[in-house]
C-alpha cells in the first residue's frame, strides 16, 4: 500500500510540475510530503511559483493563479489515472482570456481519453466543445433542454 501511494504521488507530482509549467508558460511548482516521516501518514504540501516571481505562500497567489494551479493539480491526477468522465462546473470563471486558451488546450488533449462535461459561461470554452447543450427556463422555474449543437 505504501508502495502504491508513493508511486502515485511521484507520478502525479511529475505531471503537476509539467502541467503547471505549461499552464503558466514557465514557472515551477511541486508537491511535497510533510508532517510525518511515514508516507502513509504524511500530508501533502503544495508549492507554486509563477514565472519570474519569487516562491511564496500559495495563499498570496491571485484568484486566477489559484484556479489555474488547482486545475494543474486536477489534470495531473487525470494524466496518472484517467477517470471515465469529468464534470467541471464553471472552473474557468476566474481565468482571463490567455489562461482560458491554455486551459482549453490541455482539456482537448485529455478529452481523448476522458469524457468532459463542462458547465460554462465562457465563449472560448464553448468553442472548444464538441457538443453544446443549452438549458433554458422560458417557462419560469422549469428547466428545459433546448439546443444541441454538434461540431462537424
Amino acid at each position: 500500500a505504501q508502495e502504491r501511494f508513493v508511486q502515485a504521488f511521484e507520478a502525479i507530482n511529475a505531471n503537476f510540475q509539467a502541467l503547471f509549467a505549461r499552464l503558466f508558460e514557465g514557472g515551477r511548482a511541486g508537491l511535497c510530503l510533510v508532517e510525518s516521516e511515514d508516507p502513509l501518514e504524511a500530508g501533502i504540501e503544495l508549492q507554486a511559483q509563477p514565472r519570474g516571481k519569487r516562491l511564496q505562500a500559495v495563499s498570496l497567489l491571485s484568484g486566477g493563479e489559484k484556479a489555474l494551479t488547482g486545475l494543474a493539480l486536477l489534470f495531473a491526477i487525470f494524466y496518472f489515472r484517467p477517470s471515465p468522465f469529468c464534470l467541471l462546473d464553471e472552473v474557468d470563471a476566474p481565468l482571463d482570456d490567455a489562461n482560458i486558451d491554455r486551459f482549453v488546450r490541455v482539456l482537448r488533449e485529455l478529452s481523448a481519453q476522458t469524457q468532459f462535461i463542462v458547465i460554462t459561461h465562457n465563449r472560448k470554452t464553448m468553442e472548444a466543445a464538441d457538443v453544446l447543450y443549452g438549458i433554458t427556463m422560458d417557462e419560469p422555474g422549469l428547466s428545459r433542454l433546448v439546443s444541441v449543437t454538434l461540431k462537424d
Partner: protein
Amino acid sequence: MHLQSVALHGFKSFADKTVLTLRPGVTAIVGPNGCGKSNVADAIRWALGEQSPKTLRGQRMEDVIFHGSVSRRPLGLAEVSLVFTNDGDLAVPWSEVMVGRRLYRDGESEYLLNRTACRLKDIHDLFLGTGVNPKAYALMEQERLAHLLTARPIDRRVFIEEAA
C-alpha cells in the same frame, strides 16, 4: 467506460423528463443564471449516491424533488438515471449499465441497477476503483478547486490517495 446519458425527471427544476445524451470528448452545458446547469451536476452526484443534502445546496434531501413553480404544482417523485457504457471496467456482463435513484416526497427512497431495486452498497461496490463516486475529484466546481489550494496538507492527501 463512459457516461452515455443522464435522465432527470422531477429532479430540482427539471419537472419534465429530460435526457442528455453524452458522447466522448467535450460537452459544454450553457445557459443563463439559474436555468438549471448546476442542477444537472447535482443530479449526477445524487444518482451516484450523494448522502448529504447540503452538498446539493438543500436542507433536507426532499429539497431535490421539484417543488413547483408559478405554472406547475410540486411533484411527488424525483428520479435520475445514468447510463454507462461498459468496456470491461465494470465487473458485470452487461455492455450498458443503468444506475437509478428515486426519492418520493413521503421519504421513501430507491436505488436501481438496470431497473432492478438494489442497495446503495451495490452501486458503491460496482464502481469501486473506477473513480466514479459522488465525492470523486472528477466532479469539480470552482469553490472546491480553490479549496484544494487552501486545504490542510492532510485533507489534500485524501485527494491523491483516491487516485493511488
